């Protein structure tokens, strides 16, 4: 069957028309001779910002402040204005070669054989089954993604009284969406001990939205046979459990990269991020295949993902111009309480990572972090940073920390205390 399918042969295929993919396509379309083709499975390009109606988008990449949908529109316009082709409702269903994929769309089943491929497939929130929350299986349990789809794209109704799990940036985004839909958030539930861990949002959250936050807590049971009636909340310090009445439960954060194409292609994953293992050029383990955006670092803000796109565009152009990857590589990894670092590889001779930052994720709040790097049993760098390492958001560390890494040495382990 595949033999009779038409084959498209762009110079570059970008999978995913979110901030990273669109930004990469816009930059590449001006630099390469052939076509830059962007495929997205959604009915409309733009990615997650399409249904995130609050403001704050575009700060770092466009130097302006936009709403999510406005930001998404602008990125789509920029890519198409630069000459990229953006196709929606086009799902990449698998690989047909090293840089060749199979696609299903209403216009038909086809293949795309490109000289370079950028996978910018983003991330999703873990839904209820993956969080193993026991209890009944009623309607009224959402992730933020589904909630915002329902409210902002489909103008559907949710309930009147919500509990939101998580207290990070996306959680507050969910609270705003619930408010827009006429639903009051009665409680936010965080497993972390201190609300200061997310001070940037907790303070305005408490002031403006007046939502109480139950810290050091988790949902232990969902109650309600057809419609959600309540959740059981456990105080993890004391083990005490209580019932909180609600008809809507939103499970926020706990991001997992949409890494299926990397896995089905046998590309290496980073055990920490569960996304692709990339180097600072965002190469994804196969010549000519790159990754960018929140599939690499689940998740940073949309503008950081967009700047990944800008960075990867230059690396793709270099690959198309025939520049090979340096052979030698040094693995980066982390020690607790850090969970992951991205990129996970450095190659001597490569450019610094996007924005010259290492992105890390911590499971504990460290207010005045001292970051260390060890290699082959010795400390190669130690630096105190003036910003906190806080759970629920990416902790950014200057790339210069690794300037002393030995190019022929063993893995570099990053720590924080």
């Amino acid at each position, binding site marked *: 069957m595949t033999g009779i399918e038409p084959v498209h042969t762009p110079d570059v295929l970008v999978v995913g028309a979110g901030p990273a993919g669109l930004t990469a396509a816009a930059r590449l379309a001006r630099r390469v001779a052939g076509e830059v083709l962007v495929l997205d499975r959604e009915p409309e390009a733009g990615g997650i910002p399409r249904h995130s109606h609050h403001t704050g988008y575009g700060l770092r990449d466009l130097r302006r402040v936009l709403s999510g949908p406005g930001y998404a529109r602008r990125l789509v316009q920029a890519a198409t204005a630069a000459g990229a082709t953006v196709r929606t409702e086009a799902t990449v269903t698998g690989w047909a070669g090293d840089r060749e994929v199979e696609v299903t769309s209403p216009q038909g089943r086809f293949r795309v054989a490109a000289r370079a491929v950028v996978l910018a497939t983003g991330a999703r929130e873990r*839904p209820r*089954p993956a969080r193993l929350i026991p209890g009944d299986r009623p309607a009224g349990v959402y992730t933020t993604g589904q909630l915002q789809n329902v409210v902002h794209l489909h103008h*559907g109704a949710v309930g009147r009284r919500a509990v939101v799990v998580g207290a990070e940036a996306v959680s507050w985004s969910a609270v705003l969406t619930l408010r827009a839909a006429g639903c009051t958030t009665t409680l936010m539930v965080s497993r972390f001990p201190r609300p200061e861990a997310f001070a940037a949002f907790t303070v305005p959250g408490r002031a403006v939205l007046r939502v109480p936050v139950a810290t050091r807590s988790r949902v232990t049971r969902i109650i309600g046979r057809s419609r959600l009636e309540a959740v059981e909340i456990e105080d993890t310090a004391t083990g005490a459990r209580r019932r909180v009445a609600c008809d809507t439960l939103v499970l926020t954060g706990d991001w997992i990269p949409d890494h299926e194409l990397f896995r089905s292609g046998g590309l290496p994953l980073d055990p920490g991020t569960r996304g692709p293992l990339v180097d600072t050029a965002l190469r994804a383990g196969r010549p000519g295949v790159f990754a960018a955006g929140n599939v690499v670092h689940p998740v940073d803000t949309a503008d950081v993902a967009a700047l990944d796109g800008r960075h990867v565009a230059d690396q793709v152009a270099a690959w198309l111009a025939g520049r090979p990857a340096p052979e030698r590589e040094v693995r980066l990894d982390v020690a607790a309480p850090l969970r992951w670092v991205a990129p996970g590889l450095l190659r001597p001779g490569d450019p610094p990572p996007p924005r010259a930052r290492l992105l890390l994720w911590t499971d504990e709040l460290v207010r005045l972090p001292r970051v260390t790097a060890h290699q082959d049993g010795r400390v190669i760098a130690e630096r105190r940073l003036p910003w906190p390492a806080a759970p629920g958001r990416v902790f950014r560390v200057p790339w210069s920390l690794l300037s002393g890494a030995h190019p022929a040495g063993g893995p570099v382990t990053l720590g924080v205390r």
Partner: protein
Amino acid sequence: MTDRTTGAADAVHDVAVVGAGIVGAAIARELSGHELSVALVEARDDVGDGTSKANTAILHTGFDATPGTLESALVAAGYHRLREYAAATGIPVERTGALLVAWTAEELGALPGLRAKAERNGYDRCRLVGPDEVYRQVPSLGPGALGGLTVPDESIICTWTTNLALATEARLRGTRVLLGHRVTEVAVGAEHTTLHTSRGPVRARWVVNAAGLGADWLDRRFGHDRVTVTPRRGELLVFDKPARAMVDRIVLPVPSARGKGVLVAPTVYGNVMLGPTAEDLTDRTDTGTSEAGLAFLLGRGEQLVPGLLAEEVTACYAGLRAAIDGGDYLIEATPRQRYLLVAGIRSTGLTAGIAIAEHVHGLLAEAGLPLVARTGLPAPPRMPPLGEAGPRPYRDAARIAADPAYGRIVCFCERVTAGEIRDAFRTPLPPHDLGGLRRRTRAMNGRCQGFFCGAAVHRLLATHGRITEATTEATA
């Protein structure tokens, strides 16, 4: 059409079958192949919405049944019947084979007896294998396996499609499918029995009780006191598709006095299933999952296939098996009441359903119900191809070219197209709610659980599959 609003107030059916699970649907299909008027009376708003929707979805050879029981005979016969029926209707089946794994000396010692038992059940293809062969067959198994017994014909099947195919064919043959008709009282008359239901009376000369978890309650309405159904909860975990590479066949524990234990099996949708637990309950509606059950399953999974736990869990659910005392099916006719009870059909009922229906046919004929085979029966329905091993529409270039709706993927994780969702609403038994749509199409059954597609799927549910502007044009 199905009739959700009224009972057949004046009509007297020849037979009313209560319960539209696998067994009731198979019986209605069998009987409506004869010169009879048949009603299929179901309390819920859909067929196959109770016990039959949440089992381990295994097509059993019956190798481990108790020899000489009715269950043994009907499972062995049902295996072949359902395999033929699946081929005729397109029910997804994969003959993966099974491997019983012994983890203790006691279990290892039990394997030859199990092989002998299989032979007494008429199944002679089991083979004893040593630990090397066990690990060759399933390299992902945890350490400590001492040996195994292969059952090369055990298969996996789609229980939802099986139930739906049987009920659809019953409907096509003229069975009146009465959904949302909960039986509340029974009046046995001289000529016919009246089933009072939540939507009015249903009259029939004969009543077949295939009410599953409610079979004992209904049996008592006929004045009997011979059976007590104990709902036995089985919790299951489903792992995401990358896990399928680790488990390409059914991995069974050696059965003990406490039941069949926890198995690991691939699913026809390309996932891996772990379960079930076995816990007797009193509440016949409690299909919730429990903290203890999930913890127990994760512990077992860690021992059986350690790599499994690194994969995402895409579903946690619980089913209730209609367990009764005594180790066998209980199928008995009471001719003076023109009444027949089908009880104690455990998880093997998926396999045995069609054979149970044929057995019921025999008992009814003996009891005096005239069964004259009809000619010119409609062809069996062709069911949607839900199985990963089959021709999924999203990868069928010719089908997409003929109808672009099959190229419009709505549910990304399970790759369900708008065309399939639309088709589900054009069948003789369309979905009634999201659960029904999920069982007919797999929409929203995947790893994201609606993060991406939930709103679009709900929209299609509301419009009965009509592809509207809001489905395709996202932002206002």
